[in-house]
């Protein structure tokens, strides 16, 4: 059972995050200020950390910097009310692994944490062929095949499919998809990502085949893994 350290000064939000983590099978530990958070993170091993950007005591940027300086490699999800690209960049530069803007749905937080946990466990592997069941994506030849049959994809669709296949079995929020595939950090609205995923879905899940795409209600999409 993965252990998650939740550093968040607002008791309600912290309780909500902890409850969601417990419900998803994680073991959360709540800490309410920066200094305690840093001490807790260094005292015992955690699989991941959610860290509020603005904290009493020590602010989030200082905490993540101190963590990295002390040699900790636990993935850190920074949570902030500041959404500007500059804030995001400074958060990631300080050592954060992902950046989530408040207000957020708890499912979004879980999805991002899971992505971080997975990325952390298989980082450093360079792949040339991605495979999910009978769907194959050749990253060198830029080709997609399902059950041996070639599928024509536009460049953006290829990028989208690659991202979803790399995170197969992992629910992905619309915002995560937009940030990873298009590399923009503003709010694209719900429909926009839906239509892009919808188009790709129709190309991959043609009638008669076992559907690989799954809609995650209130969050986004997931590609079924094995």
């Amino acid at each position, binding site marked *: 059972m993965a252990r998650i350290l939740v550093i968040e000064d607002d008791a309600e939000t912290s309780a909500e995050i902890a409850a969601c983590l417990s419900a998803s099978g994680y073991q959360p530990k709540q800490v309410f200020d920066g200094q305690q958070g840093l001490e807790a993170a260094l005292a015992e091993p955690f699989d991941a950390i959610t860290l509020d950007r603005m904290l009493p005591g020590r602010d989030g940027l200082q905490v993540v910097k101190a963590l990295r300086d002390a040699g900790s490699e636990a993935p850190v999800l920074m949570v902030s*009310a*500041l*959404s*500007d*690209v*500059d804030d995001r960049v400074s958060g990631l530069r300080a050592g954060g692994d992902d950046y989530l*803007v408040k*207000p957020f749905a708890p499912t979004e937080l879980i999805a991002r944490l899971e992505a971080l946990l997975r990325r952390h466990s298989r980082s450093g592997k360079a792949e040339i062929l991605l495979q999910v069941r009978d769907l194959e994506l050749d990253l060198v030849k830029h080709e997609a095949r399902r059950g041996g049959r070639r599928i024509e994809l536009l460049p*953006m669709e290829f990028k989208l499919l690659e991202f979803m296949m790399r995170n197969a079995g992992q629910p992905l929020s619309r915002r995560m998809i937009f940030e990873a595939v*298009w590399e*923009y*950090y*503003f*709010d*694209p*609205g719900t*429909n*926009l990502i839906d*239509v*892009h995923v*919808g*188009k790709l879905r129709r190309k991959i899940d043609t009638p008669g085949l076992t559907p690989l795409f799954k809609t995650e209600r209130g969050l986004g999409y997931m590609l079924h893994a094995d």
Partner: protein
Amino acid sequence: MRISELWRTTTFRLTILYGLVFALGAMALLGMIYVQSAVYLTRRVDGILNNEADALMRSPPQAMSGRIAEALALSGDRISVFALFSANGQWIAGNLGALPPALRANGPPVEIAPTHSFPAHARLIARRLPSGEELVVGRDVNQLREIRAIISAALLWSGISIILVGLACGTALSIGPLRRLRVLQAAGQDIAAGNLKRRMPTSARRDELDMFAGTVNYMMGEVERLMSEVKASTETIAHDLRTPLTRARAQLHRIQQSPDYQPDDIARVVGEIDEVLERFRALLRISELEARERQAGFKPTDLAKIISQVVELYEPLAEAGGVRLSAAPAPGIIVDADPKLLFEAVSNLVDNAIKFSGEGGVVEVGLGGDRTRPEIVVRDNGPGISEGERTAVLQRFYRSERNRLIPGSGLGLSVVAAIVKLHRFELALHEANPGLRVVIKCRGSDLTY
């Protein structure tokens, strides 16, 4: 008005400085006159004394006493001094009782105070005769001393009067500006106390104080305008957020009252709250954009590239909504911009255009203008925005009436306006008959590629 306060005014200091310089000049002039005239008169006296001494020296030694008596009789013993003393300083003849100790034979002239034998200031020279006796010749110099005294007095009084007049002028000249400063100060304190309508008084003189007051007044105008803008946007925000919050509260209240509520009821409340959060997110985004440092992330940006990326992103959405989205950008037009922000702005415009033109609509994105003022044009054939509302929708945090039925923050155009303002571009809305034509007037990059 205290002296220390007066002293701090520039006018006063300048007047005093000028007064001092003038006094010094006048003193130098009088000093020159004094030196020139006194020296001239003294030299003349010395010349006469030498001539007289020379004349007497030429007479035979035994006749000296007689010549002295003669000379005294000729020029009067009240004006001239003629005297003869023995080698050891004993009086022999003439109108000087004793040999003055400072007087040296064949030495420089000496001036002596009045004595019993010659009752006036005298200038004397002494000559040693071949017999060893000493001849003293002198002259009354009271007149010379008087002229010296007159010039000295003139020097002193003119100096004093120039300084006094300078002080008086300085004070008089400084009091005026100081009074005006007092008035400006009072106005400033009134403004600081919260009376933002108050302005600095100005005169018709257009002097430096008026220039300063004018600048302050302009500043105050800007502050007042910004304050009222902030107030207006605060009211808009309050109004905008209160509506969905009130609805959510009412719905929650209804759920609380009825024992058998439906899950859909709660979903509706969640929807209302989500809308509030959505608006907050947009408001925060606008504040962030406004607080951003200008030019921070700016680089040469190809407008055609931005447009085709936006169209690529929105094409599927348009298709799903039955809207024809087309773009005809000419490549190679470069502007200095933050490409991510410009992308966000154009995205917002295209998103709006697709939403409002609806099924069967046509949205065109293109480039217009020329190379120095290129324009990004987004045109739809939807219902458009009424003329009265067109300027309002560009205001900070304004939420258009037409957004009430469409999901989203409704602040898209405000976000676009903030981004455009950050770039110092211009945003304009035009009637497209039917529909709306939104134009972002950019500035061409000075650089060529």
